[in-house]
């Protein structure tokens, strides 16, 4: 049974209030495709009955409320997504952060809206591959996501063949993963670097450590302008002095908040808090392991 206009309005208001995700009327197909599995899991015969059930118990912390909110989030992700941000991370942001934090030998990196963890583990692999000196530092990669299921998946570090096919350089697959049945488990040396927890970017934030690098990519696009502004202004408050922020390729702080300066580097860019003052030097740290006979793989940082 298709959604009635009244049910769609109720659902879109509910999702907006609980997650800040904006569902315009043209997204009715998306709502139906995402909520049909929820209805089946709850033993409800159709979406209309699911909405009735939600109307009877509309608390955002109810099980049905959380299941619906989680179903409406987009979990598209893959390893080393877009490549260039990880080049910038390796060549500029991590060296700068290491220089700034040399006295306390501690780094906090936030993967906001981490989905199933590919971004957090891509950061972990970048660190393992290129910054071996950080093995004696306290490095925390903090992954947060609104979805409990995605947070659990991040903690487990188990990926399907389809997922490891996407963006993961084969040399890193053989180095950091083991095959378990038809799935691939990332090694403990990487899962131990990642702390994952549930967090709604549009809700109340838990106490977070001062972040040296923030990745909040391809998530602000789902929010309206006031929500984007509120989130970015809260991001400013958790960033350490001179920390850096990476957004998605189609996202910007322009016309959202004046708190950031955009730093262009090559064909990529990142953001710093205005007046934060970028570190001028980028010391070369770490080694770049090679595979015999692999003539190219520069963008993956393998050679």
């Amino acid at each position, binding site marked *: 049974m298709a959604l009635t206009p009244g049910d769609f309005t109720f659902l879109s208001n509910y999702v907006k209030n609980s997650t800040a995700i904006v569902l315009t009327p043209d997204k009715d197909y998306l709502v139906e495709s995402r909520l049909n599995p929820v209805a089946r899991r709850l033993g409800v015969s159709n979406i209309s009955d699911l909405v009735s059930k939600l109307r009877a118990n509309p608390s955002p912390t109810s099980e049905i409320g959380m299941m619906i909110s989680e179903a409406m989030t987009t979990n598209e992700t893959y390893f080393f997504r877009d490549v260039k941000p990880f080049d910038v991370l390796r060549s500029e942001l991590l060296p700068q952060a290491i220089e700034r934090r040399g006295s306390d030998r501690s780094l906090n990196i936030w993967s906001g809206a981490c989905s199933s963890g590919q971004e957090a583990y891509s950061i972990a692999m970048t660190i393992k591959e290129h910054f071996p000196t950080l093995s004696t530092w306290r490095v925390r990669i903090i992954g947060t996501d609104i979805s409990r299921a995605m947070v659990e998946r991040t903690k487990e570090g188990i990926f399907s063949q*389809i997922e490891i096919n*996407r*963006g993961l350089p*084969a040399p890193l697959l053989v180095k950091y993963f083991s095959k378990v049945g038809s799935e691939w488990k990332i090694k403990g040396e990487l899962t131990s670097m990642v702390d994952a927890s549930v967090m709604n970017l549009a809700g109340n934030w838990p106490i977070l450590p001062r972040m040296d690098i923030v990745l909040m990519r391809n998530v602000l696009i789902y929010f309206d302008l006031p929500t984007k502004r509120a989130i970015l202004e809260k991001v400013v408050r958790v960033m350490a002095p001179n920390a850096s922020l990476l957004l998605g390729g189609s996202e910007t702080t322009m016309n959202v908040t004046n708190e950031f300066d955009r730093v262009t580097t090559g064909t990529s860019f990142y953001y710093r808090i205005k007046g934060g003052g970028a570190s001028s030097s980028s010391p070369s740290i770490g080694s770049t392991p090679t595979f015999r*006979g692999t003539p190219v*793989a520069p963008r993956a940082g393998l050679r």
Partner: protein
Amino acid sequence: MALALVIDDSSATRMILARILTELGYSVEKAENGADALHKLSKMAKPELILIDWNMPVMNGYEFLVKARSMAQFDDVTMMMVTTETEIEQVLKALEAGANEYVMKPFTKDVIDEKLSLLGLGAR
């Protein structure tokens, strides 16, 4: 236009990969097995990219890879396995023989595009 060679004994897979590479801006040649590929390579312009199935008759993809990597003129050619072999030992074996990347079937256009982007060979 950059040139690619697709080696696969399945005509359907050759066609799918050729279509994907064409959409990514490549001109594509095709071969049915390793021996056919070596023969075609002796006559055609040097490709920038070779996609190689593993299990093929006459000469399999691994044998082709070893042979091609022994030929100095192909040192700078990117070679990527595209195969149903999904064991980690096979991935390692291909990398050690000189494969630059490894894709497990089934694949999508995004998978091929993302792997080529890793190698600095994304959409032309």
